[in-house]
């Protein structure tokens, strides 16, 4: 009997995910200019804190963030200002995934609403941190040769390369799942028949 109940719960979850995921993706995309504004604001603080002499301005338009630096680079047409464009959504796709998982899980109540809001905030901060590390990686590895006059403000290191790989390949995928699993232990327990 309990297995039958579990199967029903699981099938309902599967079906609701199929509905919630496209909805979440569309809502997330529509809200992306505001979410990117948040990333922009947070990046202004974090990059100004770490690289006060390098950062000139942060400009966002739609879901793109332009990191305008005070550095000059050598180009074919002479010297120009280094601007690093970032597609902020690349680092934030875990957000609609997490929202869809939370909304599709049975027994969605006020406690889970709070977790959903806190989770979204956490994922936005993680997204900002990923973009921050992307900028450091770009300065250290992608633009180091072209930066004119002075050395790159960031040194190349294995630690930075590993951190970048972790934040780009792994964290955006793992974080939503971990947050969801932590918030829905009882659901996983009921599906798998695990005890506390």
């Amino acid at each position, binding site marked *: 009997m309990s297995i039958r109940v579990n199967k029903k719960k*699981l099938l309902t979850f599967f079906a609701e995910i199929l509905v919630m995921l496209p909805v979440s993706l569309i809502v997330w*995309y529509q809200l992306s200019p505001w979410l990117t504004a948040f990333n922009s604001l947070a990046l202004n603080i974090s990059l100004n804190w770490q690289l006060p002499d390098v950062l000139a301005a942060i400009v966002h338009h739609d879901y793109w963030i332009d990191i305008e630096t005070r550095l000059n680079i050598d180009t074919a047409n002479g010297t120009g200002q280094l601007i690093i464009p970032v597609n902020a959504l690349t680092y934030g796709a875990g957000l609609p995934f997490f929202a869809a998982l939370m909304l599709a899980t049975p027994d969605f109540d006020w406690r889970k609403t709070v977790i959903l809001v806190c989770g979204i905030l956490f994922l936005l901060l993680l997204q900002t941190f990923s973009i921050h590390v992307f900028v450091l990686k770009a300065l250290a590895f992608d633009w180091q040769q072209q930066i004119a006059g002075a050395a790159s403000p960031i040194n190349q290191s294995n630690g930075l390369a590993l951190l970048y790989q972790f934040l780009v390949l792994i964290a955006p*995928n793992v974080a939503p*799942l971990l947050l969801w699993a932590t918030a829905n*232990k009882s659901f996983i327990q009921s599906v798998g028949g*695990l005890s*506390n």
Partner: protein
Amino acid sequence: MTRFFLLFIAWQTGLLALELWQPVYENLITPWTSILASIAASIMDFFDSGILTDQTQIIDRATGFAIQVESGCNGVEAFVILAAAVLAYPTSWRHQLSGIALGFLAIQGLNIIRIISLFYLAQWRADWFEWAHLYVWQTLIMLDALLFFLLWIQLIPKNQPLPAK
């Protein structure tokens, strides 16, 4: 349940560190990415002749259009997360092995569909390609891992003796 979570995080950290370790990356992950590109190209070549591969590149001989299968597109991260969850789950090692093997097939099977669909989508609608590549398929592969895990814990027999660890 707490034990499961702690083991899950420990396995995940260990496996992801192993994946990023240079010898493993060069001798296992990169060759696997090439194999994946070859499998996808072979399937496409079956119904659309003139598709070739060059290491991790898939090329349309007629148009010269090519895509590159890179790290992050090879399904390894999703598989590592699934394998960590299976290994952390309290069941016999036989069931864990079956979970890992079937999970690998489930993730890589869907991943091949992803590569094929993106190859054609990029030629048909380049503006949709970015959406599908960066947001939709990435999420679907992770969802595949989660749904497979939930199905697997539902289907394996209950009350299995815990492996001695």
